């Protein structure tokens, strides 16, 4: 038994046990249990304000998310009390839903930082150009742009991906990488992601409202969140059609009803 558990432990990249999280004293995540195996892709879905982004930022270590109960184990190590920076260095990379503009920092320098290089002494930016081309940002136009300053929605998302590609994280968290993006941009994002994930055998946690991006980044498991809890877990094939036909509310209601009936 313990041997099997040990084997399983080797395979797990992220393990979250009974996690409760407070923001300004209010509980916003409850009883979260979740695990991701190395090389696995999972999707977190649900309404706005269901707790998806909170979960992502808690995993990334944002200090306003206070863990009141439970643990986060990453790559065999308890990271519950580590800082954002330490977690990033361990291999957690997150593409933010709406990243802030940073004046005075060029996109190429941020990408260099993300790759663990020091841009102040860096001479060769070839690798940056390569990465920018992967996300369809023409290097000559974007290298020297200030980070996210005046970027459109789609440009921001592509810049986020470029930063993650430079970081090569063990766990890639994509927080609504598809929101506020037009169809053309979605296609670009989807294809570059697909290619990168396949090439790097990446572990991914993708957060989204819509199934469209999941055609490119196909998850093996889907978690549905509501009011700070994971209310439903299932395979892609099992849940996605139901979400399509019923919508989140009806689907969640149905599940809760079934559960209640089972208990009775």
């Amino acid at each position, binding site marked *: 038994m313990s041997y099997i558990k040990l084997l399983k432990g080797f395979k797990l990249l992220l393990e979250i046990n009974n996690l409760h999280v407070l923001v300004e004293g209010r509980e916003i995540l409850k009883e979260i249990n979740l695990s991701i195996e190395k090389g696995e892709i999972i999707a977190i879905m649900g309404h706005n304000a269901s707790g998806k982004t909170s979960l992502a930022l808690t995993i990334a270590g944002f200090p306003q998310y206070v863990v009141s109960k439970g643990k986060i184990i990453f790559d065999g190590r308890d990271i519950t009390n580590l800082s*954002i*920076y330490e977690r990033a260095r361990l291999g957690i990379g997150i593409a933010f839903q709406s990243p802030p503009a940073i004046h005075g920092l060029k996109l190429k320098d941020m990408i260099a930082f993300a790759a663990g290089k020091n841009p102040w002494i860096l001479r060769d930016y070839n690798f940056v150009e390569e990465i920018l081309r992967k996300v369809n940002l023409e290097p000559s136009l974007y290298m020297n742009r200030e980070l996210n300053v005046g970027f459109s929605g789609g440009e921001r998302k592509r810049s986020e991906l470029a930063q993650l590609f430079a970081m090569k994280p063990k766990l890639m968290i994509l927080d609504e990488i598809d929101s506020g993006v037009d169809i053309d941009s979605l296609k670009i994002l989807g294809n570059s992601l697909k290619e990168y994930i396949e090439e790097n055998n990446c572990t991914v946690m993708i957060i989204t409202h819509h199934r469209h991006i999941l055609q490119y980044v196909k998850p093996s498991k889907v978690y549905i969140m509501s009011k700070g809890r994971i209310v439903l877990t299932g395979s892609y094939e099992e849940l996605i059609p139901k979400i399509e036909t019923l919508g989140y509310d009806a689907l969640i209601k149905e599940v809760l009803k079934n559960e209640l009936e089972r208990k009775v």
Partner: protein
Amino acid sequence: MNWREKYRELALQALTKKSIYGSDIDINKFIDKKEEEVEINEEIKSRALEVGIELSQEKSGTYLQIDHSVILSKVASNIKGLEILPTDEALLKYDWLRSYYWKAISVDQDKYTAIAELKSTKGYFIRVAPYVRITQPIQACLYIHSQGLLQAPHNIIIAEEGSEVNIITGCTIGSKVNYGLHIGISEFYVKKNAKVIFTMIHSWNEGMYVRPRTGVIIEDDGVFVSNYILLKPVRDLQAYPTAYLIGKNAKAKFNSIIYGSQDSIIDLGSRIILMNEGCSGESIFKVVATGNAKVYNRGQIIGQNRNTKGHLECRGMILCPTASIVAIPELVAEHSETELSHEAAIGKLQEEQLNYLMARGIPPDDAIGILVKGFLDPGLPGIPEILQSEIRRKILTTIRV
């Protein structure tokens, strides 16, 4: 020099006159010194470089003063229509210069202007002939080499009609100097259609007292842009330059980039008086305060004529609970057709931005440094790109958060 008697008399009477702003400094504590030959050594070269002055490189013009001695005062051989002289020599050479002397600032404004007149320790005279455009920057360096010195150069800059000039002045000290007083008197005369971009980089240390006094007179369609950069600590600095826009459509702009650290007391203002029709003025002050630094930004714009416009802006960032920033904007409308505005925002480092950088694996100290540098980044329209990147480089290399 009889004509100077009246200034000396006024100065004598003002020797105890306190400045309205800043702490009162006992000017008798500082020493005087005779002129002497000083060789330009490596230390002087590297210190000068820190304030943007490249002594080993040929510029359109160079002035170097160490203590009270003028070491260099030259114009490149290929440049016509530019003159650089020590002010006292220029006054002997040109009688007409007397009509500029102490005309943009009063000699009896306070004890600092007074002592500058009485001690009369050189300074530069720069004149650009009518319609001459000097594209390459002129560089001037005022350097304190002796401990406890009172250095009070008197600079006069005249940009004749239709001329254009770009001047970088660096003021700094030797590494063994940890105590001194620098009073820089600067009078600018920007004639009709002329343009002066004046960049001043100061680099002092914890023992230096600094009291610059500046007056600017701008004629019709003249443009004056001042960039002031202070990135290293200072004991106590106070300045309140004043621009008089006497001509129609004259423009003045003051940009300041301040990194106040350690126990620095920095009291920096600017006054723009829009005296004629269509004049406009702007003052943009960017400051980061850390350690025990106290930084004051006083800005005043006075609208006295029709179609005048003025804007004051102070953006401050506080990194440390023991530091402070005080923004004191003053708008004075003395005409019904003047438009004046101000904007001030002081805050801490944006946590969202800091977290974003750290989430990319950037260590906390580096992340703070990136944000501080980005915040101070000049990004100033109307300033040559070469100068902007120079300032940017300076910010990157000087500031250690």
